[in-house]
């Protein structure tokens, strides 16, 4: 029996991916805390501005008015320490959070060009450590500026005890920006879900209990049940404790959480990671590789890398480009009709059509494609969420078909940043990758280390994710990333082999944060956290 989540206590960015709700712009600001009291006063002054998960008013339902900008706040371990959290509470946080992202570089594979020494200056300040994160998600650029002005005012009132940290890199080699801006990639004035390599991003999103969302969305997004994956019976919602502390998780207990109880309850952990994209190298690679591939089509190469066509359709359900493109046009059309629908009947029908189509976008599994003839075993989405593939077709081998995947799911909340027009490697562009999960090590770090930069669980030895893997260079300086596109089994046809892949994505900064509930936030601001 799962209780419905107290949405007014949970920060909004946990339950909502703002991008889907019409917030294509974001600004991320980081502060250090030099004086505990000043820091707490600053936090206190921001509390009225923080957006919770309470649903926004729609035509049918009540709720709060949708804000022009949503604001959320999070803290590093160092930040909590500087704000005066008692030692006992600090020690009750997991050591992945306490060490911070830089300390975990070996687990994450942040070496070579991704090493912390090469990160944006903000992460390399010896004297000022990042303590507080404030994220603004805005419907318009103006909304961002208005919210930012409000926050600046609070900062000014906090005095010298709190410092806004500069040192983000931007266009034209600038490297001392006071915040990191991010934004959806726009095409013809409309925000798209594309990122800089041209992929449609953010399609897979774990579905968990208690949010009040339409349970039909569990299809393809929850955990597999073993029934047909293209039907609702194939999927179940995940337990909320995988993403929110204080609630039952997939191991049938409450996840490890900081002490006292109210400090952790309804909170979660956030991974913030600035990932630079070598757009030029990527374009060049897929062009060159296409020439060596039988289809002679760079869209095929891109699709095999990701497991989805760049339009978003999954290879598992749409092995050919023509079918995939036709389908995506249908999906876009249904989405538009849903947005524009007026009147209950029209809305209900539009939603039904949209959900049916959506289901094809996510309602699939790999059990009839075990060898990877359609979606390569090492493709990005298959690595990030193997669904029931790790049963390797042995029905009933595990307690549940998704037993090895269900505890490794993550919520993604980031946006692309930078200049989409610049198609080179040196342009200022990439993704602000933000992951939310109850356990940084079990969910984010495990996937990053065991499934992205390694391949043993997929029987791929040391092969890495083609797109985000930390490919190294061989003696001659060439990239030594590799990938096999398996052929359909028993056809006698050769697989395709890609080699000399350079590193397409480089880490340029990041940190681990704790997102407290509204209750915990008040306690932190008041300095009343006491685990006695």
């Amino acid at each position, binding site marked *: 029996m799962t209780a419905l989540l107290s949405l007014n206590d949970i920060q909004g960015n946990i339950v909502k991916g703002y991008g889907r709700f019409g917030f294509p712009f974001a600004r991320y600001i980081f502060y250090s805390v030099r004086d505990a009291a000043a820091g707490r006063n600053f936090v206190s002054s921001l509390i009225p501005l923080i957006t919770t998960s309470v649903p926004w008013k729609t035509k049918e339902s009540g709720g709060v008015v949708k804000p022009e900008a949503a604001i959320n706040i999070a803290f590093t371990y160092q930040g909590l320490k500087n704000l005066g959290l008692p030692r006992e509470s600090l020690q009750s946080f997991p050591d992945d959070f306490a060490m911070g992202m830089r300390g975990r570089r070996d687990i994450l594979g942040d070496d070579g060009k991704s090493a912390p020494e090469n990160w944006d200056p903000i992460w390399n300040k010896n004297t000022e450590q990042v303590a507080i994160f404030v994220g603004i998600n805005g419907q318009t650029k103006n909304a961002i500026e208005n919210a930012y002005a409000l926050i600046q005012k609070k900062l000014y009132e906090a005095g010298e005890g709190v410092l806004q940290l500069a040192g983000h890199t931007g266009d034209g080699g600038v490297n001392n920006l006071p915040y990191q801006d991010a934004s959806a990639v726009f095409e013809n004035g409309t925000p798209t879900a594309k990122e800089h390599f041209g992929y449609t991003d953010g399609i897979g999103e774990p579905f968990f209990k208690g949010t009040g969302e339409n349970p039909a969305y569990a299809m393809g997004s929850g955990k597999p049940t073993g029934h047909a994956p293209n039907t609702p019976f194939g999927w179940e919602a995940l337990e909320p404790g995988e993403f929110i502390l204080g609630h039952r998780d997939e191991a049938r207990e409450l996840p490890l959480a900081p002490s006292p109880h109210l400090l952790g309850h309804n909170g979660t952990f956030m991974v913030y990671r600035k990932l630079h994209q070598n757009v030029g190298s990527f374009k060049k690679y897929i062009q060159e590789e296409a020439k*060596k591939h039988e289809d002679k089509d760079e869209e095929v190469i891109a699709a095999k890398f990701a497991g989805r066509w760049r339009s978003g359709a999954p290879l598992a359900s749409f092995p050919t480009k023509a079918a995939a493109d036709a389908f995506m046009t249908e999906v876009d059309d249904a989405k538009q009709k849903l947005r524009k629908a007026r009147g209950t009947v029209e809305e209900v029908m539009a939603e039904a059509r949209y959900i049916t189509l959506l289901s094809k976008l996510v309602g699939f599994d790999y059990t009839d494609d075990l060898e990877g003839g359609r979606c390569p075993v090492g493709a990005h989405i298959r690595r990030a969420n193997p669904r029931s593939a790790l049963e390797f077709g042995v029905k009933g081998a595990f307690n549940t078909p998704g037993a090895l995947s269900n505890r490794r799911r993550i919520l993604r909340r980031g946006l692309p940043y930078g200049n989409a027009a610049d198609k080179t490697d040196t342009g200022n562009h990439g993704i602000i990758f933000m992951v939310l999960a109850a356990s940084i090590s079990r969910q984010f770090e495990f996937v990053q280390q065991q499934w992205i930069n390694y391949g043993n669980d997929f029987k791929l030895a040391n092969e890495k994710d083609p797109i985000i893997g930390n490919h190294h260079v061989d003696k001659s300086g060439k990239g030594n990333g*590799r990938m096999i596109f398996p052929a359909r089994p028993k056809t006698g046809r*050769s697989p*395709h*082999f890609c*080699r000399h892949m350079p590193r397409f994505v480089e880490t340029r900064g990041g940190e681990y944060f704790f997102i407290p509930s509204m209750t915990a936030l008040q306690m932190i601001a008041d300095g009343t956290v006491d685990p006695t």
Partner: protein
Amino acid sequence: MGNTAGKAYGLTLLCPIKADVGGYSYGDIIRDRLEGLMLNHNSPMAKVPNTYLCRLYVLDDVFYEGYPAKEEHLKSRYLVFCTNFYGSLETYLQEMWNKIEKDVRFLWEHCIAFDRVQNAKEFVAYIKKCQVKNTLFFNGSTDEPLAEQLKSLYLKQEFSRFVFNNHGKTAGELQRAFREFVAITQPDNLAGPSWTPGMIEESPHHNYENHLQTAR
């Protein structure tokens, strides 16, 4: 049979250690010696033929689980040796004695009754007295001789390199390249090029590409 799974053998030993004398703890000495052993391909166990994986630890005592479990203690400490290997027990132990007698003495000399071990035959008898039977031995891998396993791993590595390197070649080029590959790697020759026991990284000579005569 609990001690075997196919041709793989799982030997489990509890070797009682001499009691502490005065300020002298034999158990601690053994543990120090174990900790100081060279690792990987320099481990003494790398010289014992057909050893897949093995480990040693000193068992000081059993653990008290807490009420309502009963508290109890062992009267002796034990050198625990757990090894997974291919083949017959006698052959394995004889080879162990023949190849690393010095290391065996170094690790076992403070075990009770080991001073009576003077040769391979007595070593085998001693070991059998220390052996405990496995209730279940699970083989999640293969039960081939080690040389076979190592050769297969070497071939998997080199053939994978070959496949990636020669993708897209014409039939004639491919066949020529493959014949050269076979000549270098000698797939059916266990005594030919292969991985060595305990190897933690490849050396240049393992990579077949470094042996190619033809210009690349």
